[in-house]
C-alpha cells in the first residue's frame, strides 16, 4: 500500500514536470481566428455544411459569431491551441455593453464568451432574438 502511494506521488510529480516543460518550451500557443473566412471554415468543421454567410469577428480574433442563410448562428471560440463551437439557441443568454456582446451558453463548462464587435454588436444582439425560431438538429455528443 505504501509502495502504491509512493508510486502515485512520483507519477503526479512527473505529470507536473512534463506539463511545466510543455509550457517552458512554448508549445501550443493560444489559437486565434484569422479572418471571416477562417471563422466560416471553423463553423463548417463543427457542423459539416453549416454554410456561413456572415461573420461577427471579435477584434482580437478570440471568438466569432457565424450566421448561415437559414438564420442559424454558431459561436466559435478559441480553446487553447484549438477551437470549439456551439450552435446558438434559445437557451443562450446575451448581454450587450456598448461594442461588447457577451454570450452565455447553457453549458457552464463551456463558459461565457465576450466578443468585441464594435458597432456591429447591436446587430448581432438583435439577431439573437431570432435564433429560437431557427433551431435545427445539432450534433449530440
Amino acid at each position, binding site marked *: 500500500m505504501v509502495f502504491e502511494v509512493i508510486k*502515485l506521488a512520483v507519477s503526479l510529480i512527473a*505529470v507536473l514536470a512534463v506539463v511545466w516543460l510543455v509550457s517552458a518550451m512554448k508549445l*501550443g500557443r493560444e489559437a486565434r481566428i484569422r479572418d471571416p473566412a477562417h471563422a466560416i471554415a471553423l463553423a463548417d468543421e463543427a457542423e459539416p*455544411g453549416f454554410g456561413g454567410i456572415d461573420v461577427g469577428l471579435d477584434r482580437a480574433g478570440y471568438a466569432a459569431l457565424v450566421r448561415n442563410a437559414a438564420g442559424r448562428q454558431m459561436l466559435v471560440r478559441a480553446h*487553447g491551441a484549438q*477551437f470549439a463551437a456551439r450552435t446558438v439557441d434559445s437557451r443562450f443568454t446575451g448581454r450587450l455593453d456598448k461594442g461588447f456582446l457577451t454570450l452565455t451558453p447553457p453549458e457552464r463548462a463551456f463558459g461565457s464568451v465576450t466578443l468585441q464587435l464594435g458597432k456591429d454588436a447591436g446587430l448581432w444582439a438583435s439577431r439573437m432574438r431570432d435564433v429560437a425560431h431557427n433551431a435545427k*438538429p*445539432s450534433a*449530440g455528443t
Partner: protein
Amino acid sequence: MPPQISPIDYAVPVFILLILIEMIVARRRDPARYEARDTLTSLLLGTGSTVAGALTGGLVLALSLRLYELRLFDISWAWWAWALCFVLDDFAYYWFHRAAHRVRWFWASHVNHHSSQHYNLSTALRQPWTSFIAVSFIFRIPLALIGFHPAMILACGAVNLIYQFWIHTEAIGRMPRWFEAVMNTPSHHRVHHAVNPRYLDRNYAGTFIVWDRMFGTFAAEQDTDRPRYGIVRQLGSFNLLWAVFHEWIGIARDLWSAPWRHKLSYAWREPGWSHDGSRMTSDMIRARWQAHRSTNDQDGEERPWTSSTSS
C-alpha cells in the same frame, strides 16, 4: 504458479521519455501539437485511471478466476498459448472498442480517451476512470472461460495497451506498406481519433488492423483530408472532472427527461441518438456530409496535407 507480469510498470519510464522526444520534435515542426492544459488533463486522466484500476482490478480478476474454474479447456503456458491468447484478446478488444463507440453506455467511459483535440503521445495516456461502471471488462473475460489463465489475459491486455501507445502521434507519417496492411499504425489510429465525417467510427483495432478490414470498419487516412481530433461536440473545457463525467451526466439528464418508452434507448443506442431527431449520430453526420459534398462537388478543392504536418 502463474507468472506475475506487470509490463506497464516497466513501460511508463519509456512512455515519458518518448513524450519528451515528441515534444522536441513538435517544437521544431509544429508547436500546436502540444498544449499545457490539454497535456495536464490527459496525464491526470491517465494517473486517475491507474487509481481506478487498482480499486476495481481485484474484482475483475476475482470474476475472471471464477470463470476460469469453469473453463472449457486446459490451456498450458506454452508459447503458442501466449500467441493465441494475444490474438484472441486483440479480437475481443476490437469488439469492445466497437461497442465503446456504438453504445452510449460504453461510450460514456471511453469518451475520456477521445476528448482531447490534440493527438500526441500524452493523448494515449488519457484513459477512462469509469470502465468498471461501464462493465467494459465483459468483452475480455470470456477468454478465461475458454481456458486461458487470467494472468495470461491480463499480461496480453497490458502488452496490447503498450503497443497502442506509440500510434498516438503525428510525428510518424506512414509505415511500410506491409506493416500498414496488418498492424495498427499512427496513420490508421489518427483516422480513429478524427472527427472528419469520413473518418467517424472507423479503425477500432488495437494491435491488428486486419479486424477492421475483415468487418468493414476500415478507413484509410486521406492525404487530402487532414484529421481533426476530439469529439463531435468538442468539450471546450480543460476541466478534469467534466472530461471524466460529462457523458454520464448527459445520460442521466436524458434518462430523467425522456419519455418512458425511450429512456433506455438513451443508454443503449449510439451516441447522438435522440427520440425526437434533435441530435445527430455519426451516421447522420456522414450522410449529411456526403449529400453536401455531392451537391458542391468538393473533390476538386481538396489539397494534400501530410507533407506539411507529418514529420
